[in-house]
C-alpha cells in the first residue's frame, strides 16, 4: 500500500498520549488540528521515529514497515516549530546537511542545497549565518532543508505558529505552492483554521490522543463535530439536546429553534456563523425564529467587520453566550457599546445541528 499508514499507541508515564490509526495517500496534505495536549506533536514524532511506541503500533511508508527503523533511515523529514535551523551553520550548510548525511561530497551537497534555496526564493540568504534570519525566512530555509533530502513524508509542526501576520501570510502561500507540489505525504500541525482549510486537502481533528473527526475542509466547516473545533473555526457553538418540535435545549440553560433535527433526546452541537446573527435595538418582528435580549460585553474589530460578544439578558432565553459579526455601519446605527442592551436574532435555517 503506497502512502503513509500509522497505527500508533504511545504511553508516557502510564498515561495514553496517542491511540489512533491513520492512512494518507501520496501527494495528500493533511492538517492535524486539536486542542493543546491532544497529541498532535506526538503524532508527528511517532511518524519521525522519535518516540517509543507500545507494542501493536505500526508505521508503514509505501509498503515498508518502519516501526523499528531509526529516524535516519525513514526518509521522513521533520520541521519543528520555528524551523530549528542549526545555529552553528550557515543557511547553505543547513540545507546541505541532509544531502551530506546521505553520503554526497561537500561540493555536490552545496550545489544541491543552492538549487533548493533557489526553488524557495531564498538563494540570496545562502551565506548568512542561520541565526541572522527572520521567522519567515527561517521557515523557508527549514522547508528547503527538509525537501532537499527528497523525503517520502513531510512533517510540519506549526510552521506559522510563531510568526507575525505578514510573515504568516507569506509562509502560508509558500506552503500552498510547494507543499501541494510535494509528491509524498504531508502532515501539517496547525492552530490556524485558515491554514488548515486552505493548505490541506483533509483535516484530522485530534482530541485526547485519538481522531475525533477526519473530513475534507468543506465538510468540516459545514458540520464541526466538537465545540472546540467550532470555536477554532470562529463559529458560535452551543451543545445541547433535542427536545422535539424543532427545539434544542442548550446545556447553558437556553433554547433555540432549529430545522433538520435528529431524534428526540439526541445530544447535538448547534453551530452558527457569527455573520448569520442579526442585531436590533428593539424586539424584531422579522421572520427569524430565534430572538433574545442580550447585553453587549465586548466590541472589537475583525477584519472589515466588527465582532460583538453577547450575554443573554434573561436566563433561559436564547444561548447564554454568542458572538455576532456585523458591519461598522450597523454598529453606529445601533449605537452598540459594551453594556448596552440589544436584541439578537438568528434564523432557524442558519443553525447547523450535528449529532455528537
Amino acid at each position, binding site marked *: 500500500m503506497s502512502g503513509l499508514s500509522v497505527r500508533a499507541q504511545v504511553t508516557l508515564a502510564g498515561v495514553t498520549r496517542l491511540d489512533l490509526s491513520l492512512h494518507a495517500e501520496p501527494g495528500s496534505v493533511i492538517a492535524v488540528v486539536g486542542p493543546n495536549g491532544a497529541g498532535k506533536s506526538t503524532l508527528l*514524532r511517532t511518524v*519521525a*521515529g*522519535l518516540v517509543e511506541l507500545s507494542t501493536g503500533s505500526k508505521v508503514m511508508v509505501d509498503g515498508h514497515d518502519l516501526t523499528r527503523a*531509526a*529516524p*535516519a*533511515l*525513514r526518509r*521522513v*523529514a*521533520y*520541521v*519543528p516549530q520555528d524551523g*530549528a535551523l*542549526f*545555529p*552553528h551553520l550557515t543557511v547553505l550548510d543547513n540545507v546541505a*546537511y*541532509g544531502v551530506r*548525511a*546521505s553520503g554526497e561530497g561537500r561540493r555536490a551537497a552545496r550545489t544541491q542545497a543552492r538549487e533548493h534555496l533557489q526553488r524557495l526564493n531564498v538563494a540570496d540568504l545562502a551565506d548568512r549565518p542561520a*541565526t541572522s534570519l527572520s521567522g519567515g525566512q527561517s521557515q523557508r530555509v527549514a522547508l528547503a*532543508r*527538509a525537501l532537499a*533530502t527528497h523525503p517520502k513524508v513531510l*512533517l510540519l509542526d506549526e510552521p506559522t505558529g510563531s510568526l507575525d501576520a505578514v510573515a504568516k501570510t507569506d509562509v502560508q502561500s509558500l506552503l500552498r505552492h510547494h507543499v501541494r507540489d510535494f509528491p509524498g505525504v504531508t502532515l501539517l500541525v496547525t492552530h490556524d483554521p485558515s491554514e488548515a482549510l486552505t493548505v490541506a486537502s483533509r483535516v484530522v481533528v485530534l482530541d485526547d490522543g485519538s481522531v475525533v473527526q477526519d473530513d475534507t475542509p468543506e465538510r468540516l466547516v459545514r458540520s464541526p463535530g466538537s465545540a472546540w473545533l467550532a470555536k477554532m473555526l470562529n463559529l458560535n457553538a452551543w451543545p445541547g439536546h433535542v427536545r422535539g418540535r424543532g427545539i434544542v435545549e442548550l446545556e447553558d440553560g437556553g433554547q433555540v429553534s432549529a430545522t433538520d433535527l435528529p431524534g428526540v433526546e439526541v445530544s447535538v452541537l448547534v453551530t452558527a456563523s457569527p455573520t448569520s446573527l442579526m442585531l436590533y435595538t428593539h424586539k424584531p418582528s422579522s421572520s427569524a425564529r430565534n430572538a433574545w435580549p442580550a447585553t453587549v460585553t465586548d466590541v472589537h474589530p475583525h477584519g472589515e467587520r466588527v465582532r460583538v460578544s453577547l450575554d443573554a439578558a434573561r436566563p433561559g432565553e436564547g444561548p447564554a453566550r454568542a458572538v455576532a459579526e456585523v458591519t461598522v455601519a450597523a454598529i453606529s446605527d445601533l449605537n452598540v457599546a459594551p453594556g448596552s442592551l440589544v436584541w439578537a436574532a438568528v434564523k432557524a435555517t442558519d443553525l447547523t445541528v450535528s449529532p455528537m
Partner: protein
Amino acid sequence: MSTALKRRSRPPAALLLLALLAGTFLLLPLIGIIIRAPWGDLRRTITEPVVQQAFGVSLIASTGALVACLLVGVPLAWVLARVDFPGRSLVRGLVLVPMVLPPVVGGVALLLAFGPRGMLGQTFELMGVTIPFTTAATVMAATFVSLPFLVLTVEAAFGSVDERYEDVAETLGGSGWHVFRTVTVPLCRPAIFSGATLAWARALGEFGATITFAGSIAGVTQTMPLAVYEVLPTRPDDALTLSLLLLAISATVIVLLRSHWLGPLRTVSQQ
C-alpha cells in the same frame, strides 16, 4: 548585554571597604611575586636545568591530562547527561569527588590502584609495566584531579542542548555518531573549550597527587609546582622564576577564557 539605564546610587561605604580588603588580599601576593622576581637575572635563571626540566615535565603532564580528559571525559559527560541508567545520580556525584578530595588522598588512591601491590598494578607488573614514579604517573595524577572539571562543565552543556536540533539532524539522515559530531559537539563547543581550559589549568597546578603517586624526580616527574617547593629554601631565585612563569600562564589562560571562550558561552545560553 543589558541596556537598562544605569541606576544612580551611592554604594555603602562598609561594602566598599570589605571589597577593597578582599581585592588587596588576592592581588598583593601576586604583585609580590612580580616585584621580587629576579628580573635582572631572568635570562640566566630561565635556562637553569631545574627550571627547564620542570617546565618540560609540566608541559607533558598538563597536555597529556588535557588529551586524556577530552578523549574520555567528553564521552563520560555525554553518558551522564543523556543515558538513563540506574544509579546515575550516584555516579554523577562520585565522578566529582576528586574535585573536593585532598589531592594527597587522590595520590594514595592512585598508588593503591596502580602501585606495585595495587589492584591493577599487579597485572601491569606482570606485563613488565611499572607506573608509579614515572612521567606517565604525572599524567595520570593530573588527569585524576582535572577530569571532573571537564566533565562537570561539558555535562551541563550536553544536558541543556535543545534536543530538537538532534531530532532534526537524525530525520535528515544522520546516524547517532554523525549527529554527535556535527550537531551536539559544535553546539557545545564553548563549554568544551572552557571545560578543557579549566581542566588543563588544574592539571598544571597539580601538586599533592603527583608528589604522592609520581614523586619529585627532576626531569622525570618533577613538575613546576613541585620544583618551586623543592628549590625555594636553597635557590629562591629559581623558585621565583618558576612562580612567575606559572603566574604568567595562569593569567593568560584566565584572560583568554573570559574574553574569548566564556563570551560565546554566555550568548549561547541566552538563545
